[in-house]
């Protein structure tokens, strides 16, 4: 077991971001974290990344506290706020020295596959920005990848490329957790779908099991949320 959340509650003032969450992640899985806005997806990812502390319960990544496991966790937030002057080469320089597990060869390959242009970040389109950010994160050799809305609000072709990349980057010894709204499009790449509603886990199922029951992940999503 690579990571787990045990009876985790995280409070924001009077409200619960997540309540009583139990989730364990096994190596080799691609997990879709699905739910509406405010359902606790980002909170869950941040708890796993060590960016938030649980109000109750315990979070563990590779047997340690998330903060201590940081070297093995790659987190991509849904923010697109990188420096406007940053070129892919600048990003490489940054990543190389800040992250010991960054692999420059893999990075260049990803830049090529994702067709990231050689321009400053500020001059890129939304889709190109998203592809650069993804290349930066996936070029790291981490055990746990946490991607917050990597497909959010970008053009179809970029989304397609990104999904192909996510499939290609699948690792037997790692886990990749993707939170997304684009359920219908992305569902093929999930092994497992975890559904959150108002901070609670309402369904945790293997995607193929759902389909065995005649439901697509999207169908299950709609059922669970209504």
């Amino acid at each position, binding site marked *: 077991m690579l990571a787990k959340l045990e009876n985790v509650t995280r409070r924001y003032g009077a409200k619960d971001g997540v309540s009583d969450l139990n989730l364990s992640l096994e190596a080799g899985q691609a997990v879709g974290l699905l739910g509406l806005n405010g359902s606790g997806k980002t909170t869950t990812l941040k708890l796993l990344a*060590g960016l938030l502390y649980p109000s109750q319960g315990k979070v563990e990544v590779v047997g340690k506290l998330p903060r201590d496991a940081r070297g093995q966790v790659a987190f991509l937030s849904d*923010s697109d706020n990188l420096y*406007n*002057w940053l070129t892919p080469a*600048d990003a490489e*320089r940054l990543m190389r020295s*800040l992250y010991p597990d960054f692999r420059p060869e893999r990075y260049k390959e990803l830049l090529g596959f994702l067709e990231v242009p050689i321009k400053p970040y500020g001059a890129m389109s939304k889709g190109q920005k998203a592809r650069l*950010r993804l290349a*930066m994160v996936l070029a790291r050799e981490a055990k746990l990848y946490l991607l917050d809305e990597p497909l959010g609000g970008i053009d179809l072709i970029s989304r397609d490329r990104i999904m192909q990349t996510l499939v290609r980057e699948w690792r037997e010894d790692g886990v990749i957790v993707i939170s997304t709204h684009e359920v219908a499009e992305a569902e093929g790449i999930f092994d497992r779908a975890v559904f959150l509603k108002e901070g609670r886990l309402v369904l945790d199922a293997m995607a193929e099991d759902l389909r065995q029951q005649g439901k697509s992940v999207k169908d299950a999503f709609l059922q669970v949320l209504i």
Partner: protein
Amino acid sequence: MNVFSTLVWLEFRKGAGWLVALLGIVGLALWAVLRVQDTPFAATPASVESLGLRFLYISLAATGGVVILLLSMVFTSRQDGTLVLLSVPDGSQHLWARFAYYAAFSALFLVLLSVVLWWALSRAQVALSLGAALYLVAYNLVSFWLPMVAGVLLIRQVNLSFALGRMAWLANLVMLVGILNLGGLGILLLGNIAYTLPALPFPTITALGFDINAEVGLLETGLPLELPILGVLTTALFVWLAGRIWNEVEA
């Protein structure tokens, strides 16, 4: 390529325009000081006036430099902000790199201005060796300037990390007052403990042939070592604190 140098490089890339501005100010100050009527100093109103003018230009330059430093720090704030990727290096590394960048270049600026001042004074027959002048500058930098830069970094970090919104002005005011009070406490503390440690020597300054130290007795006691020590401790405290705040929120 190590972490520290990359983080300093990062600060440089975020905004280096201010460095050019500072260099320009030094150039301007030098030019202005040179333009002032340059005759050997005599105890006449005209001579005193020209010395005064030189002081004025250098003070203006120093003030301008400080303003530019602050503006630069404020403007690059917009680039630091929402975290996109998780940072493996700790907040303290980020903040020390930031501090090193701003402190080093602003200190260089002040040293250059001080050299201009030293030259102006030497024309007014206020004799002081260059080494002694730099020594005094270093003393002031460590005692006052570096803690101030660190203090500003801390206030800036609080603003960045806590997204203060509407009440930001109040929080900043409180912090400023807090830091000034801290300064006041420092002075009180200094009053009590000054000169308990062996004092640093005060260099010889002569003016118009008179040895100032001999004339104004209290300078014989030298400079308190406690002041720069307090300066170093305060600087380290502020940068450490800023690093912790960075960790709690941005990291």
